[in-house]
């Protein structure tokens, strides 16, 4: 074990912990609070499913329509896409998501004041507490986003079948799907990380004396 160099008198500087330890504790805390997390998770799932579905539908629709028109002499009625409104709706759903996660995390930080204070009394550094809460939220975000993407892809495919008959199924251009999913994953993770920034910072700045507070 490498001991840091002596600083003032007999006092040394506290060491940084490896990220794996923060991951381990974050996972443990999440498992215990699964019930509450599920509510937040649902918001993320829905918002990300909405985003993925709209995105994919916009890609699938024209391809399938052209293919169907070329194949048979079907008169396909393409509904006029109102992209402006869709972008507005998606932004709104993502914003709701952001505020929801932020709120849930903030509540979790306020509730756990004693736990945070105690960890600081035991020698946890600000950066460790920051990592703990950021990780917790990012795990939640990634899990929700992945579920949302799966749901969104399924919805987009189902919509094509409903709109253009079962013949559309074989015409779906799956090639671009992984890229859309990856982009959605990036957006989902970025939003949860952004949402957790302030609560995590607040937790990190909490004074160790919070551990002494008796009232809840």
């Amino acid at each position, binding site marked *: 074990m490498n001991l840091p160099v002596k600083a003032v008198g007999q006092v040394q500087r*506290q060491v940084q912990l490896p990220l794996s330890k923060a991951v381990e504790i974050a996972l443990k805390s999440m498992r215990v609070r699964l019930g509450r997390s599920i509510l937040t998770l649902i918001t993320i799932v829905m918002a990300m499913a909405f985003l993925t579905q709209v995105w994919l539908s916009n890609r699938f629709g024209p391809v399938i329509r052209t293919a169907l028109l070329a194949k048979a002499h079907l008169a396909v009625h393409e509904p006029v896409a109102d992209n402006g409104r869709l972008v507005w709706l998606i932004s709104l759903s993502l914003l709701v998501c952001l505020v929801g996660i932020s709120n849930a995390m903030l509540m979790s930080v306020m509730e756990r004041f004693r736990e945070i*204070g*105690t960890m600081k*009394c*035991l*020698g946890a550094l600000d950066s460790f507490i920051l990592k703990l809460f950021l990780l917790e939220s990012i795990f939640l975000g990634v899990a929700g986003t992945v579920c949302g993407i799966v749901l969104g892809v399924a919805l987009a495919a189902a919509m094509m079948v409903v709109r253009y008959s079962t013949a559309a199924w074989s015409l779906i251009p799956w090639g671009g799907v992984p890229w859309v999913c990856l982009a959605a994953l990036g957006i989902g993770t970025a939003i949860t990380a952004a949402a957790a920034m302030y609560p995590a910072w607040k937790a990190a700045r909490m*004074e*160790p004396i919070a551990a*002494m507070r008796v009232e809840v």
Partner: protein
Amino acid sequence: MTAQTTAAPQGREEIVRTINVVKEYRMGDQTLQALKGVSVTIYRGEYISIMGPSGSGKSTLFNAIGGLDKPSSGKVFIDEVDVAQLDALELAWLRCRKIGYIFQTFNLIPVMTALENVALPMIFGGMLEADARDKAKAILERVELGHRIDNKPSQLSGGQQQRVAIARAFANDPAIILADEPTGNLDLNTGKAIIGLLKEMNRERGVTVISATHDLKMLDISDRIFWIRDGAVEKIQRRDEVTIDAGQMH
């Protein structure tokens, strides 16, 4: 002040010294003095009780001694180091290695088992996981909880939780144990057992125990008692002096 000089044991190593510590709180445009210049010295291996009614400044003094609260003026030395001079990393090190904290509300991390709770300060201190677990197990056996090491705090009684907390406080072999009302949430007998355990650990490991309390059971085992009133040290008594005064105390 005269009480302090007569009660202090001579020729021993200092572990904590406060010099004229003042703590002020601003409440609107009024300034409230919680501590009005407290100077005390605590020696290595002593068992100190800080007694006083709530609002007396007892907790404020306790927190200042523990490096948890910065005084408005005056100095606090822990093991000859001026706490105010330390940066965040050094303070964290001090809390991790030099001081063990015991709380009224036990404050175990709810998502961790007893063993993980005791191992945590060692891991924060940079010890290897396996070594930390071995040592945590040994300390838990010392506090007679060898059979409950894999239990979560919610599966333990109050007394057992406080034993785990004591084990955790001793994890990094600190020089000072700070116990804030350690018996405040326990019934009479459990409280007695906890006080007994603290005293045993104090003797056998030579650790300085500083306890803020209004539990009179603490009087029997304390080496010295600091009586705090209105933000000042009213008197400092040795244990033998207390028994004489016991009648008037109640």
